[in-house]
Structures are given as C-alpha cells and as structure tokens.
C-alpha cells in the first residue's frame, strides 16, 4: 500500500506542473491537431489528480467522476474534434493574431498573475496554492486562446480549457461537486461540443472559411 500512497502524493504534488506545461505548449502550438492532443493530455493529468484525491480522501464517488472525465474528456471529445478536423477539409493551422513566442509570453504572464490572484484565498480557505493557481491559470489561458485564435475550432478548444479550469477550481476548493451535478455538467459539455461542432460546419458552409475575425456581415 505504501507504493499507492507514494504515487498519490507525487501525482498531487506534480500535476500543477504538468498542467502549466500543457497550457504553455498549447499557446506555442501551430496546428489544431497538436492542440487537441495537448487538451487530451491535460485531461489525463486531471484524471490522475482526481484518482489521487479519491485515494487520499477514500471517496468512492470520486472514482466514478474520474472514470467519467476519462471517457468524456480524454477519449470522446478529442475523438470528436479529430473527426471534425478530418471532415472539414480546411487548412489545419492555428491562425492567431499573436505569434507563438508572444502567446507563450502572455500565457506565462497569465500564470504568474494567477499565482498573485489566489494569494488571499489560499490564506483564508487553506487550500493548495499551486492547484488553485493552476485552476485560475487554466481559466485565464482558455479565455486568452479564445480571443487570440481566429479559427472557430480553436474557440471550442479554448472553451474546453476554460471549463477544465472551473472544474479544477471546484475540485480544489470544495473537493468536487455532488455526483449528480458532475454527471449533468459532463452531459452538458458533450452536448456543447456537439452543437459547436455543428456550428463550425455551418460557418464553413455559409462563409467558406472558419476565420471568426471575418464574420462581420449577416448572411441569409
């Protein structure tokens, strides 16, 4: 049993580092497919963290949540996104309004900002500083990815990263929401991705491109 406890402690201690790295690489990535792979890796880090928390707090419900996150976020959503990328037949680059070096600089700044932003809450709530900072950093960089990327698909990925951040914040501050609500959220998320996927196809069919910065006029 010593080994499992050791693994759980290490997963809790180092998952924030891996989350930061996935976020920074996402900011640097030039292709949509690598962003999707990075999103899947980010969710895998989340799964390992939930498993570690479940083991430490001896909570069977959390194992169910971990399984749900694994199936929905690590497998189903990336698979769906890859299908969309395949069927879109559009150029696969991430078209961004900032260069990748600038994006990484901004993402790094957002990570630092989140460390300073969580200071008062860490003291009053008594939660892990790195974890809470990682949650806020995920929310901020998700929002940054949404505003700086021009492809409609990248907006979907940005929103998913943002949602990961909110999920992580709930996990660290209150040790997750009740199971029923979690299941509802996952169902919502799946529907959301499905709808956004349809929406991306509609944009492509109507405008013959996916560049949201060019969506200025209404068309019938």
């Amino acid at each position, binding site marked *: 049993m010593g080994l499992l406890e050791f693994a759980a402690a*290490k997963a809790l201690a*180092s998952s*924030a*580092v*891996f989350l*930061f*790295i996935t976020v*920074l690489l996402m900011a*640097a990535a030039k292709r949509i497919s690598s962003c999707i792979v990075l999103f899947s890796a980010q969710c895998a880090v989340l799964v390992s963290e939930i498993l570690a928390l479940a083991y430490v707090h001896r909570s069977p419900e959390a194992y169910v949540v971990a399984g749900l996150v694994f199936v929905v976020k690590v497998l189903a959503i990336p698979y769906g996104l890859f299908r969309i990328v395949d069927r879109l037949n559009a150029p696969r680059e991430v078209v961004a309004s900032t*260069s*990748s*070096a*600038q994006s*990484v*600089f901004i993402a*790094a700044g957002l*990570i*630092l900002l989140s*460390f300073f932003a969580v200071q008062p809450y860490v003291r009053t709530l008594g939660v892990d500083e*790195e974890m809470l900072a990682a949650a806020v950093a995920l929310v901020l960089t998700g929002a940054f990815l949404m505003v700086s990327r021009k492809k409609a698909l990248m907006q979907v990925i940005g929103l998913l990263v943002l949602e990961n951040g909110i999920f992580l914040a709930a996990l660290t501050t209150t040790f997750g929401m009740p199971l029923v609500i979690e299941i509802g959220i996952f169902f919502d998320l799946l529907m959301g991705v499905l709808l956004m996927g349809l929406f991306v196809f509609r944009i492509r069919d109507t405008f013959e491109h996916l560049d949201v910065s060019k969506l200025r006029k209404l068309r019938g």
Partner: protein
Amino acid sequence: MTQALNVFQAVLLVLIAPLLRGVIGRWKARIQNRRGASVWRPYADLLKLFRKEDLVPTTASGLFRLAPVVLFAVTVAAAGFVPVLQGSALLGTTGDFILLVYLLALGRFFLVLGAMDGGSSFGGMGASREALVSTLAEAPLLLGLAAVAILARTASLAGIVQWTLRQDFFELSAVHALAFAALAFVAIAETGRIPVDNPATHLELTMIHEAMVLEYSGPSLALIEWASAIKLSLMAALLIAVFAPWGMATTATGASLAVATAAYLAKLAVVAAAVAVLESSVAKLRMYLVPDFLGVASALAILAVVFTALMR
C-alpha cells in the same frame, strides 16, 4: 583518482563526439528506410580531411587560418567544464556556467569572423544568420541554467550536479521542467540541427553553419567539423548532467565507474534516438520563424527563473 577521472571524462567527451554524430546519422537513415553509412564514418572523414591540403582564398588574411584553431581550442576547453561520469569536472573549480556559455560564444564569434574573412557571399550570409541565431539563443541558455543554479544555490556546474544528485528522483519541480524545455530548444539551435538548421546538406539557400564553412578545406575544415561534433556531444552531456545525473559515480571505485559509464552511454543513446526521431518527423523552419522558435524558449526560461522565487 578524482582528477584522473576528470581528465578521462573530458577526453571521453571529445573522442566520442564524432561517434554520436555517426550514430544519429545512422539511426536517422534507418528511420527513413535507408541503410545509412557506418557509425565510424565521421572518424574516417576527419582522418581524410587531416591528410588533405589546406587551401586559403587569396583574399583572406591570417584570421582565416586562426579561426578554426581558436574554435576547436575553446570548444575543447568548454568540454572540461561539464561533469560526465562524476559530480565534478576538470575545470570545475576555476569557472562556472557563465564562463561555459561565453566560451562557446567566443568560438562562434571566431567562426563568424573566419566566414566573413573567406570573402565569399555565402560566408557573409551564413555569418549574419549565425550571429542572429546565437544572439537570440544566448538569453534562454543563460536564464535556463541560471534557474537551476538558483535552486542549487551555486553557479558551478559540478555544484549543480551534486545538488541534483542529492534530490529525490521523483521530486519534479516546475522550474526543472521549464528550464529543460528552454535548454532543449536552445541546444537544437546552438548545434544547428533541424528545425533550425540542416546539418546534412550545403545545397540549401537557408543553411547557416554549412554556409559559413564553405570556404574551408583540409585540416581547418576537420577542426571545425570536430568542434561542432564536440559541441553537440557537450550540449547532450550538459542536459544529461543538469537534469538527469542519476547513476553518476559518487565513489571512485571500479564498479561505480562502470555503472556511471553505462548509465551515461544509455542516456546518450536516448538523446541520439530523440534527435533522430525529431529530425525525421519535423520540417525545417523558415528562416524568419527561427526568432519565434527561440522566443518561445526565452519565455519558458524567464518563467523558469520567476518560478524559483514563487516555489518555496
């Protein structure tokens, strides 16, 4: 005994450098479904070049002949700073990582001068590109090493290695991950590998290193080629020493030395395999995207330094 081992590891670094190149070339060929040349080919090349006549352009001054010698000398001196088999280095007591970085910069400076002295337009183009790449690579290299040095509270490479050896293998900190990413980016740019520069050809308009050495021949070219091979092996040894020194000899016995050598060769094989896979799977960057590539490295290195203050 320790001093003898220090000499041995520096000599090892210099002598196996062409072999590392040969192994990378061979594995790259296998991945691309070619048979590839023998792994000993770089040694044969060096031997052949050393026997040939040294041709100097009529427009060149004495600097042209001096540059390869200086480049080779400072690169070998830099190899004396890197711990390979144990937590100390031949010149470890006389200098720190800043000296190592600027020894490499000095060698590159002379190579750039020699390239411009050669008088061909290609040499000038290669020299200006090399100057651009090395200017941009210097900051992340220094900052990445500085981040680790701040954690270890010592500027000497041997001290950093000894500190890392005392840490738990699983004690992964954000600083190490970020600094490793930054230094890996820099190592690619510094050693002129794909995606920054293509070491396999001098028939490309966007070449950097090969354009600088076009005018060189005979023993001068051999010295330059050997120096760039040593630089590749030095960068690999530096990454291994700072981020994965586990297995290094802590006592000067035959058994621990054998373990250290085997561990080092295994880690070097991992690096060679990673380089071969990377070079076969990514395309060379356009010249104008190289600053962006190194900008990402700078951002990671700066974040690594800032994190040393944030994390306890």
